[in-house]
């Protein structure tokens, strides 16, 4: 019986891996009424039919089809709802219809950095202010004081006074509301101890559109390259492909806690240049996604120096700046590092991305964010403004929230204490969750896991037995994708295979968020353990003793794997694997 179930599970795994695309949504047939009715003018319809039959384009595919759309759209991979997630959604529906049909009672989405979807509560003060700004008529009512804290009411007034006509329903300046940009600049200055200007802030619908805007500006052709970390958040590879540029990878060193070595940057830069690529910019994600490392100040200085010497734009993805979980590390913005080295606007073009989606607030649905653009000539900034103006402006509610996260309640404010309780509660719980999951992963045979010093993810490495790799290949899947699918089918836990982020050849990982609510973590760990042990038993190479040895060898040999393989990576095109992750 058990054998039968295993076989069935295998077949299901293989089948869902074979299904290259999700089932197509039904195309609405032309309504029956329209079909049965003769067209208003049969003669003219016939004439047009004839005209079409005779026209040169008649034999061509419809104007919008896979054969005729932009090939860059076809090429880029951004399977935010990749196969694993699509499969999870199908299982969820199945569970809904028949709760007894699966060996678990809920799907646990650890694939996506979307805290509120897993039950994280919004920060009360921020939401009070947003609610009041959405309906300013409330501010004139005395009853409002019964529902909202008085400092939220006061803040809503302050914000509305910064908006021309207090009109939150109006398009704003394309760069964002000036008063809010000034407030954000003041927040940056307070954080860094160096001047910041509201004129350098561009408010955007989340950080992703800001990244796209910069790629659009920088990339002229496939001869232009962008240096990006591997593993990386696939926004970068997707955006570079979509804009027709070349993805130039540099590897983070797993052995040193995903360290970013300037020697590696230099090596990859020279290699790209030798292939005729003009490298335009360096992307650094700090704290790292999916790798969770927090860069040391000394390391950041070397990176700044490197960009200055090589004439690269530094694109600093700093959206996890509030998410730090270890005592011995602090977040330092690249701007602060550059200014502390004495570099000014004239020395280094630098873009820092920030978002309301991350941090302790996790307000993903608001699509708020900004980029701070320094070291660019005025004529370049005008071009950024022009591109921003085509979309008119970013959403005003997201703009307001961006200003709030950069200027939260201060000591003495009525909401300060409750705000701090909420904030610290979320951050310390995230730290505990990160630690519990990391320890659990490291306690297992065949898994090694670096600490999550920051961000929202763990990126454990799987040392898979040869037999498991063989089984995956037989199913036509990447070994880590195979593992992730088996995990899902056995436990309902959704993770993203490492191949979606890029990894050193011959290594396998998965990304797991630390976001499930804390009371669920022990159950997740035990379900995970149970699955993993069975999986390892099922695929153990030879006898159990030899497999242990092999697994140990595998661990020690991992550094070698990486160096051997890194040269094989092609420079252009970015990451082409099927499964991806989401912020």
């Amino acid at each position, binding site marked *: 019986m058990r054998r039968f179930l295993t076989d069935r599970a295998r077949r299901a795994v293989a089948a869902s891996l074979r299904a290259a695309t999700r089932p197509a949504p039904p195309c609405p047939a032309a309504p029956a009424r329209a079909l049965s009715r003769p067209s208003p003018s049969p003669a003219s319809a016939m004439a047009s039919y004839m005209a079409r039959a005779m026209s040169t384009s008649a034999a061509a595919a419809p104007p919008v089809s896979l054969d005729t*759309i932009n090939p860059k759209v076809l090429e880029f991979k951004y399977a935010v*709802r990749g196969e694993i997630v699509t499969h999870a959604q199908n299982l969820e529906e199945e569970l809904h219809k028949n709760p007894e049909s699966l060996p678990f009672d809920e799907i646990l989405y650890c694939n996506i950095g979307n805290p509120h979807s897993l039950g994280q509560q919004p920060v009360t003060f921020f939401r009070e202010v947003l609610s009041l700004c959405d309906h300013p008529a409330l501010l004139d009512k005395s009853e409002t004081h019964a529902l909202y804290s008085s400092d939220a009411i006061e803040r809503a007034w302050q914000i509305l006074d910064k908006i021309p006509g207090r009109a*939150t329903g109006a398009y704003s300046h394309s760069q964002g509301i000036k008063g809010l940009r000034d407030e954000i600049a003041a927040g940056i200055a307070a954080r860094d101890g160096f001047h910041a200007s509201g004129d350098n802030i561009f408010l955007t619908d989340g950080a992703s559109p800001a990244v796209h805007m910069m790629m659009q500006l920088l990339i002229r052709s496939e001869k232009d390259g962008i240096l990006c970390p591997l593993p990386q958040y696939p926004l970068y590879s997707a955006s570079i492909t979509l804009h027709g540029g070349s993805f130039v990878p540099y590897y983070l060193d797993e052995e040193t806690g995903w360290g970013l070595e300037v020697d590696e940057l230099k090596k990859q830069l020279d290699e790209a240049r030798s292939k005729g690529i003009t490298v335009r910019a360096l992307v650094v994600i700090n704290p790292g996604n999916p790798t969770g490392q927090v860069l040391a100040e000394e390391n950041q200085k070397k990176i700044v120096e490197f960009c200055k010497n090589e004439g690269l734009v530094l694109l600093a993805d700093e959206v996890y700046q509030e998410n730090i979980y270890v005592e011995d590390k602090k977040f330092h913005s690249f701007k602060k590092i550059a200014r502390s080295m004495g570099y000014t606007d004239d020395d280094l073009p630098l873009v820092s991305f920030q978002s309301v989606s991350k941090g302790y607030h996790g307000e993903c649905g608001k699509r708020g964010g900004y980029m701070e653009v320094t070291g660019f000539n005025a004529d370049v900034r005008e071009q950024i403004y022009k591109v921003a103006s085509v979309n008119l402006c970013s959403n005003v509610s997201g703009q307001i929230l961006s200003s709030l996260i950069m200027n939260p309640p201060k000591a003495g404010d009525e909401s300060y204490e409750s705000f701090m309780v909420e904030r610290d509660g979320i951050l310390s719980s995230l730290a505990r969750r990160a630690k519990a999951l990391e320890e659990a992963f490291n306690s297992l045979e065949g898994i090694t896991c670096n600490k999550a010093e920051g961000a929202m993810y763990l990126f454990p490495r799987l040392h898979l037995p040869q037999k498991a790799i063989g089984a995956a290949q037989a199913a036509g899947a990447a070994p880590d994708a195979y593992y992730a699918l088996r995990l899902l089918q056995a436990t309902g836990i959704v993770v993203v295979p490492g191949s979606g982020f890029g990894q050193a050849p011959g290594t396998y990982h998965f990304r797991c968020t630390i976001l499930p609510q804390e009371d669920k973590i022990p159950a997740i760990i035990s379900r995970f353990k149970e699955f993993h042990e069975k999986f390892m038993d099922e695929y153990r190479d030879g006898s159990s003793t030899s497999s242990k040895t092999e697994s140990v060898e595998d661990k020690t040999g991992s550094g070698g794997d990486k160096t051997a393989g890194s040269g094989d990576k092609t420079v252009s095109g970015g990451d082409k694997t099927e499964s991806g992750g989401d912020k």
Partner: protein
Amino acid sequence: MGRKGLDYEDLNENVKKVQYAVRGELYLRASELQKEGKRIIFTNVGNPHALGQKPLTFPRQVVALCQAPFLLDDPNVGLIFPADAIARAKHYLAMAPGGLGAYSDSRGIPGVRKEVAEFIQRRDGYPSDPELIYLTDGASKGVMQMLNAIIRNGRDGILVPVPQYPLYSAAISLFGGSLVPYYLDEEANWGLDLVNTRQSVAAARSNGITIRAMVIINPGNPTGQCLSEANLKEILNFCYQENLVLLADEVYQQNVYQDERPFISSRKVLFDMGGPISREVQLVSFHTVSKGYWGECGQRGGYFEMTNIPPKTVDEIYKVASIALSPNVPGQIFMGLMMSPPKPGDISYPKFATESKSILDSLRRRAQIMTDGFNSCRNVVCNFTEGAMYSFPQIRLPQRAMDTARSAGKEPDVFYCLKLLEATGISTVPGSGFGQKEGVFHLRTTILPAEEDMPAIMSSFKKFNDSFMEQYQDYSKL
């Protein structure tokens, strides 16, 4: 390294080519004058709340509650929120697990897309599939997603009406495609002339351009015309013959100010036509919360609906949508509310109906005041604003004005609009920003200034215009 990583010379050429007049020279000059303390009447952008239009109460109540869901448990909530707003907030929060703070499906919240589909079915009489409706951060984002998916290179052409809303020219430049203009006929109330369109197509093809898509804006921006059913049929037939996808910008569908030609959607006309056309012509229709009597521009809410697009292509467009993760959730809820506003019998219905009717009635009166005002001016002729939010008068500039403008290095209409701005504080957009026939000049104003200010604005315009015409009247008449 002497150069920095990003000098102007090193920018993507497509970015540099983009022109976006709505926020161009005139707007910048107006902002300067405003800083100097001059009173500026901004009529350059269709941005109703910026000119004092008040938001509709009910949708704001619902979104305020969704922002602060903890209020729903507060016994005092009923003091300031009506019961139907509370119920509706719960309805949307139930649709959006994680509330306003969670990324939604990249295509939008399924429940809201269903409300959109139901609206479309009520409007057109044909069923609509929520799977083919994608919510977006405003209609502009949707247009850009579609053009990004369509345009492969500089030999792909998009047919765009001239005068046009410059979003289209900007997005086509940005994606490296070719804009193929077709001229609207001012003499025929900005109607679409297919003979002329066919000539444009033939000319473009002889230059090696593959025409991929046709854009229509109905009601028209900046031209304000409402297309007739017969005209829409011709357009759909044309797209069928020429194998073009029709991109129907229908964001002004609530803004109609005459009764002879109510808004009719391209989709309804397509399905009414029946036969192979209705099954084969590919159509993408765009809508937004920024226009109508809502005017909620700052929310960035919108959707597009795809008809006859193959499922695999729909998946690719899903992928394009997914890189922005999801449209903003408050904007999605506004979209849902616009699609299913309060109904007769609901507590909030009377107030909602009064507010929306008063906005629409006033817009209709303002459209009339503005058209009449322009037509009373010397050398100005203006078609009636049948719909949308703009007036697009033709300014017949005397030769002397044109000569003076050119010697100052300005397009004649830019020269006129700058003078108008300096003299009256009225900030308009010159017709050259939208495209116009050679030697013919226009300006665009919105009809959005407050109704009570309208007579004064029109009389200050007239005073300026008539003295301008006096000053520059042709040599022969001197």
